[in-house]
């Protein structure tokens, strides 16, 4: 089997991320263009359509986790009254702000994250994002606005869409006031169109992992997801995924495996453990196991986007996401993925501070194992707070799980 090389697109990826932060830094310093902070599934297309540069605090949260700064910063927010039991993106990000420490300094020579002119949230993922943004709204004395979404949704109905689309429209006057510019519908439609293109390409990228062996692991995807997160609605993201997809297709045609000698294929349900991505990636690879699919990386697939109906389609896309849906929908979703990706087992990451992205707490692992006839493992950990993670126990659990699958 041909040896695995680094992705050629990686250097392009690094450049995109650097450009993103440097552009924001310049804008914040010059006061133009205006900077909007947005939650990961907030109305980024609208913000782009209105000429804002968009900054995503969750992305910064993930960087704090991956750089392992988070665990030192979280206690500062804890001491301010933000409990160790709530979202550790929130606590590490606020801790980072209070202690004036950011991985952006080392990576890009940037002193601090860009100051916001407005903060825009969407609660489709959790309430924590609203509390998080509200904190900064008070701190910077700028408007904090957003969309309050239905949760636990079974079938997505027109009344859901109507309510969310209306809320998105209601953001417009405030955003116009902050930016001093009128909404340009053509520009908005263009952003929605580019978002849709990005989505389709990103989905195709992830789907290449359905090949046996897979050219891509969950751990690779968490890195390559960057442009879909920070550049959704721009041409930059579209170009990147065209390049990456081409590279992956080539790997598939030559049978290049992401994990040498792949013989077990797993699903990862839940958040990444950012500070342990490398360790886990190496552990699984050493066990000849490819984590080929995940819910998390699919969170940036917004299939409903339609430039002809920008508000309604944004509303639908943001609501159709896994995290906002009920258990029955989620179970069907995971079942489909397990079949599509030919998986042998499911690892559920029960993230201590993110119950919203932890689906192992209401009996789903046992139910799905019975129905799919494949075993499940629940790993206790956290996205950013490594105090909640025990390396030794996680390793033993994972090794024992793979032994169980291999022994049949």
């Amino acid at each position, binding site marked *: 089997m041909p040896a695995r090389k680094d992705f050629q697109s990686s250097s392009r990826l690094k450049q995109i991320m650097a450009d993103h932060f440097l552009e924001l830094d310049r804008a914040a310093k010059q006061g133009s263009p205006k900077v909007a902070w947005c939650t990961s599934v907030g109305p980024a297309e609208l913000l782009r359509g209105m000429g804002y540069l968009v900054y995503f605090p969750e992305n910064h949260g993930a960087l704090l986790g991956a750089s392992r700064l988070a665990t030192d910063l979280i206690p500062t927010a804890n001491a301010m009254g933000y409990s160790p039991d709530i979202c550790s993106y929130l606590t590490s990000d606020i801790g980072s702000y209070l202690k004036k420490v950011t991985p952006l300094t080392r990576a890009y020579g940037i002193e601090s994250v860009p100051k916001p002119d407005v903060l825009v949230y969407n609660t489709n993922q959790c309430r924590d994002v609203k509390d998080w943004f509200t904190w900064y709204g008070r701190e910077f004395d700028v408007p904090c606005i957003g969309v309050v979404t239905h949760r636990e949704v079974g079938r997505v109905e027109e009344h859901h869409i109507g309510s969310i689309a209306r809320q998105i429209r209601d953001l417009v006057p405030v955003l116009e006031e902050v930016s001093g510019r009128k909404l340009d519908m053509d520009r908005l439609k263009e952003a929605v169109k580019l978002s849709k293109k990005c989505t389709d390409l990103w989905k195709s990228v992830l789907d290449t992992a359905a090949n046996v062996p897979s050219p891509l692991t969950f751990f690779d995807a968490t890195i390559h997801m960057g442009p879909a997160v920070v550049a959704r609605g721009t041409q930059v993201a579209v170009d990147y995924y065209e390049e990456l997809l081409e590279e992956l297709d080539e790997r598939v045609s030559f049978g290049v495996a992401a994990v040498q000698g792949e013989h077990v294929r797993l699903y990862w349900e839940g958040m990444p453990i950012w500070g342990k991505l490398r360790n886990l990636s190496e552990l699984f690879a050493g066990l000849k196991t490819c984590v080929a699919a995940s819910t998390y990386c699919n969170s940036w697939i917004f299939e409903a986007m339609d430039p002809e109906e920008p508000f309604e389609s944004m509303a639908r896309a943001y609501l159709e996401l896994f995290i906002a849906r009920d258990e029955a929908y989620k179970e069907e979703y995971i079942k489909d993925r397990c079949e599509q990706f030919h998986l042998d087992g499911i690892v559920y990451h029960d993230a201590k501070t993110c119950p919203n992205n932890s689906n192992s707490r209401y009996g789903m692992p046992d139910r799905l194992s019975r129905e799919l006839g494949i*075993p499940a493992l629940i790993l206790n950990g956290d996205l950013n707070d490594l105090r909640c993670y025990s390396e030794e*126990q996680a390793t033993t659990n994972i090794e*024992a799980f793979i032994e169980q699958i291999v022994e049949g």
Partner: protein
Amino acid sequence: MPQPCFSGIDVGASAVKVVVIDDSGDILGLNVRRSGHDFEASAKASFDAALAAANLDSGDIVRIVSTGYGRRNTLFSDYTRTEIGCHARGCFHYFPRAITVVDIGGQDNKVIKLDDRGRRINFKMNRKCAAGTGAFLEEMANRLSVPLDGLDSLARSAGGEATLGSYCTVFSATEVLEKIRAGTPLADLVKGIFRSVVKRVMEMEPLTGTVVATGGVVAHNPGMVAILEEEIGRPVLVPPHPQCTGALGAALFARDSEE
């Protein structure tokens, strides 16, 4: 010609266990000692002692498999297996049918379900907390100033039983102190502590079918097995040398391996 022999080494957080078996899986020698801080040295010393007990020398051992918390520290073993696999294998050796294995160790608890061919259906390990493990008992023995090996006889002599409500080791310790102040007899306290360990295990997974209990805590505290039986309303099976089931499982893997 002497028959081939195999060894399993279980380097746990508190104790090292070594088992030497022959080709038919019979135990020829075993040894248990504290893990200490130098896992490699303790494993080697324990291995030598088990060999001596079996009247063998290292040249007689065809293969060694190590397991447990310090499995990677045992550099002289041929390969490693997780303790989950080894406990399952060791228990199935004595009870070859569908069983639910309950292993209560120094640091971890495990519930492992096996089908009638000994294949693992699933397993669960305790969450990252010492409640319900040997470490919890050690802490409580300390609080009560009772030697660890004195707990079992105390629990058996209890006339009544104290109730501990918390699933946190530290809070349980506070509850124990409060009950000491209130004059609860020591034996009743210890029995309550035993029951709290059993309860923590029962919260992990339904204990269905035939239950087999193993692990160091079970080996040293048979009184706990009685409480487990009471809780599930059925007899609980205990293999010979329950503390060494993981090491035995490792030795059986060594015997069965083609490597």
